[in-house]
């Protein structure tokens, strides 16, 4: 007969023996593991604080001052910079341009990349090559693609006007047309961004359980019905991610504007990030640029929260 208590299973149970050397020591196992954890995440947290949180806080503070950013002392002006944003159509319009340029890029790239992902998910010969071709623009820098586009849009010897002349049509003065330059900014950014979003959709498509399609087919669903009732609902979590990351990317459009139009013609392509750059570094108005950054960050945050709560809830 053992000294132990008979448990419900009929097996004797004993009080847990203390770990060797645990009693009376500071470096318990839990503490050691805790320290290891902090040591692992510590550098990243320090990095994030120094490179992320502190600058973010500084931008908020700077939005309440008038300062060139490189000389003299900042002057506290309370909400003056925010009032400027509200009062001047020049600044208000920048947010409107960003919404419709960014929105157009987002919608176009989501639709096109989803369609291409569907095609490239099919079992066709050489699909790896097609995937590479579609992804290629994503890995080429905007500096290069913008130069390419500049050459296409050259008013006299550019590709697009050469094609128009060849087709017997009059050449178009692209650079001086607000409509056309906005259009080309959207086209270039969409073309460049499609590859990345396509990969996300492709990954989502490949993660769909094939038995769902088989079950659908047994129930008599045609291709369109399978797309509507199997593919689209299954892709919803991926779509939420693609929409949020795509929206943040599209709203922060800068390089094509800087390299193709510099915000023109007639300010039609001046978007928020370009305007922040211009006010900070060309107008030496760090306060106004900071106020613009704060408002823009809040807008992006609001969009993200909205999408997560409305679209994301449906996903659950």
């Amino acid at each position, binding site marked *: 007969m053992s000294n132990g208590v008979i448990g419900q299973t009929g097996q004797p149970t004993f009080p847990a023996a203390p770990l060797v050397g645990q009693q009376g020591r500071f470096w318990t196992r839990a503490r*050691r593991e805790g320290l*290891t954890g902090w040591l692992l995440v510590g550098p990243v947290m320090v990095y994030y604080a120094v490179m992320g949180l502190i600058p973010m806080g500084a931008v908020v503070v700077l939005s309440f001052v008038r300062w060139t950013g*490189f000389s*003299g002392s900042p002057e506290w002006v309370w909400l003056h910079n925010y009032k400027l944003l509200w009062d001047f159509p020049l600044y208000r319009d920048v947010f409107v341009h960003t919404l419709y340029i960014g929105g157009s890029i987002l919608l176009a790239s989501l639709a096109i990349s989803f369609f291409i992902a569907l095609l490239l998910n099919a079992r066709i010969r050489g699909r790896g090559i097609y995937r590479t071709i579609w992804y290629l623009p994503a890995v080429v820098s905007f500096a290069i693609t913008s130069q390419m586009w500049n050459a296409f849009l050259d008013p006299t010897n550019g590709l697009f006007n050469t094609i128009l002349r060849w087709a017997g049509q009059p050449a178009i003065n692209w650079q*001086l047309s607000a409509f056309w330059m906005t259009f080309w900014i959207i086209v270039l950014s969409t073309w460049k961004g499609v590859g990345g979003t396509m990969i996300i959709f492709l990954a989502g498509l490949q993660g769909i359980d094939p038995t769902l399609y088989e079950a659908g087919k047994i129930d008599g669903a045609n291709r369109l019905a399978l797309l509507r009732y199997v593919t689209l609902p299954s892709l919803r979590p991926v779509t939420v991610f693609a929409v949020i990351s795509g929206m943040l990317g599209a709203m922060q459009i800068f390089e094509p504007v800087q390299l193709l139009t510099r915000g023109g*013609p007639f300010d039609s392509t001046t978007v928020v990030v370009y305007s922040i750059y211009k006010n900070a570094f060309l*107008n030496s108005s760090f306060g106004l640029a900071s106020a613009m950054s704060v408002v823009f960050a809040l807008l992006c945050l609001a969009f993200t929260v909205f999408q997560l709560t409305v679209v994301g809830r449906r996903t659950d």
Partner: protein
Amino acid sequence: MSRVLRILASLVVLVSVLAGSARPFHASTAAAAAKKVLVMTLANPYVDPAIYLNDKTKKTDPADYSNAQLTKRIFAMFYKMHPDYVIKPVNWGWSDALRQKILLNVAAGTGPDVITGEDFFPEFARDGILVPVELGPLQKEIAPATLSVGMYDGKTYAVPAESGIFELFYNKTLFKQAGLDPNKPPATWDQWLADSKKIAALGHGISGTATEVNTGLGASFRLAPFMRQVGGDFTSKDGMKITFNSPGNLKAFTFLRQLTATQVPGLSSATDEGKWFAAGWWANKAGFVVDGPWEIASSQQFKLNFGVAPLPVAPGGHPANVVVGNQMFAVMKASKNQQAALDLVRIFGTEAASRLNYKYTGRLPINLNVLNNDVMKAGGPISVFAEGLKVPGITGLPAYPANPANIWDIFYNLQVAALATNQPIANLLATAQSNAEAQLAQ
């Protein structure tokens, strides 16, 4: 497993600490290490001699090689005065890119000792990041127009190394084809417009005058002389008031719109100057173009049969111009080598350095002795520019006291709408005036 994690974590911390405390290692020769370093930004035609003179592949462009020789000789003049220094040239580009990089370095406290540039010196002086340059007797040796662009509040903050104004280039081949006398370039606006129309009538994609119509500073530069000829300008003399909406500007824009109509539509709508020159002037497809002294070498390179004449003058107007292509050098207040930096900057204004610049680049020198002797005696197209520089009251483009980029954008919108559309110019001027005033009042 936990031991592995602990070792890994310790390594991460160790590497972070070491990386944070480490100083960048610069391999340098013992001789260079013993000398003080003077950092200066350079831009064409001044280039880092070490790059182009030591090119063993022999693929260096002849112009770059020549520019490197020029720079090396200027540096040698400095080393004679300061043998204890070594100059470290850096190329930070030009215009907005250069401006931004300088400001970022000022903000970070890592600015160079000497900066180069063209149009931002009064603004930088006003913001207190430059030190004034005492030129002494040299002040009177430098062409006043070229010096004016680097002045603020009556003090000199930047010294020019080379300069330019605009004159009229005309294509003698197209003159002959249009039945015009190639030795009789136009002297008035009316004559210029009439000649342009005759040349444009040749057809085959030929423009009468290639006028710059786009949303860039180059176009604004080219408008300035004509606005000023009839009493117009961008700002008041003290630079504190916007004067877009003036009778002079209305007159100038009205004429320039007519002149633009003699150009193939869209020729110059891209801001890349090289492209529209290549499609128009350099391709023998434009009767006239307004450009600076650097164009002489380019036109020769493209084997054009061309002439250079003073800019035609408006009826009732007077000769006027704008300082352009005026590369200057200034000393940063944060420089720890101010005395040496000031000596280096002053060298560019001397007769010897100016003569070297003229010899190696063929551009317009800034020293009056070189202008009046070497350039005028040599004659040819460059002497037209040297003569034009004597017109009193020539200055550069204005430095707006607030929101300069926004005010320039307003002017760019004005110039495009005024020259390339049929909207009433008076309305466009009034709108631009009120928008720019609002920016100035912020």
